[in-house]
């Protein structure tokens, strides 16, 4: 049976353990074995103390986000064989960037969710709306917001964003994407408030359109487009405001 080398970044900063790389030889039991399967194999057969998060195993929950061979990805959605095909036959797995490591591959997503809370990610129903409020599937509005509602909050975009790494106050791609989905939704009554929140030095204007968030999103959400869309909305809003003041 073929084996690959799984190299895992380990350590527990809370216990003052210096981070280190540990290698494990993992048999490729099946061609469809994922990186998450390999981690589970190591935990069950070699080292039960290996810490990582997982839940659904089918790419729906966003719990098993890690950095695989230097690139953010869901461990459950990354085939071991394809990840090992980088020439060295070694798969390097490390925790998400820009979030504090609790132990091994487990990070504290508190900051990520704080930023999400900051844009108030829930829909504020407009006055007079009667349930059920339906947006036709073929309407332009529905087609605009649909891809942006697919977010599973895995944090891969936040980890891949260089700006988030430099400035922990930056709202981050996921929060801005959520804000765009809500601002573009006619059923939401808090568009102005939300635009005011995101149009800040540590919000929209800090994004440098690097596209890393879009590149790593496991759901293929065009996050950069959302951020650019928000910028356009703020520009229109500001200029309208300016000309109204001028009268």
């Amino acid at each position, binding site marked *: 049976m073929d084996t690959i080398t799984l190299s895992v970044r380990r350590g527990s900063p809370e216990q003052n353990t210096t981070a280190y790389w540990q290698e494990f030889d993992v048999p490729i039991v099946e061609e469809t074995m994922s990186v998450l399967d390999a981690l589970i194999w190591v935990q069950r057969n070699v080292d039960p103390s290996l810490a990582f998060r997982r839940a659904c195993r089918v790419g729906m929950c966003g719990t098993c986000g890690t950095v695989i061979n230097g690139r953010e990805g869901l461990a459950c959605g990354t085939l071991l064989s394809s990840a090992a095909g980088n020439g060295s036959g070694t798969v390097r797995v490390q925790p998400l960037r820009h979030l504090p490591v609790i132990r091994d591959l487990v990070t504290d997503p508190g900051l990520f969710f704080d930023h999400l809370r*900051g844009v108030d990610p829930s829909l*504020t129903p407009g006055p007079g709306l009667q349930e059920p409020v339906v947006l036709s599937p073929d309407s332009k509005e529905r087609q605009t917001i649909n891809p942006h509602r697919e977010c599973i909050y895995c944090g891969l975009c936040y980890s891949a964003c260089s700006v988030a790494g430099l400035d922990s106050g930056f709202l981050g791609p996921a929060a801005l994407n959520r804000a765009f989905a809500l601002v573009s939704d006619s059923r939401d009554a*808090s568009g102005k*408030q939300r635009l*005011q929140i995101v*149009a800040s*030095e540590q919000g929209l*204007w800090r994004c440098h359109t690097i596209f890393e968030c879009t590149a790593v999103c496991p759901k293929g959400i065009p996050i950069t487009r959302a951020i650019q869309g928000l910028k356009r909305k703020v520009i229109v809003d500001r200029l309208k405001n300016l000309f109204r003041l001028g009268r």
Partner: protein
Amino acid sequence: MKPRDMSAPLTSRQENTVTGFWPWFLQRVSGFLLIFLVGVHIWMTHFSGLSDVVRGHQEELVLFEIVKQRLAQGLFIFIDFSLLALVLYHGLNGMRNILLEWGPAARHAAGMTAGLWLLGVGTFIYGAWALLAFIL
């Protein structure tokens, strides 16, 4: 971060306290205008044939008299002053953006912005003084 009460309407003051919009917006506007003005500047300096006023010279010369003659015209005065202001704004605002990447505290960021404004205004005055020497 404390969640905001989203059901409360924005006051007019809140509506106008959007931060960071104008520096971001004007950076793009100034960048766009600079592309145009730098083109005009290069054309004016090297291809407009203004040096032809110096008779008897085979090569193109940048002489004080030529520059003075050019700057006596309102359009060129406007272009050169605009170029000076836009270059300074675009450059220093870009510098501010780079410095903000380091995530300075709000107090330091405000001081930094004020410092860059002072530098910009000071340099503009110096540049304007140099230009006026040709005009006056």
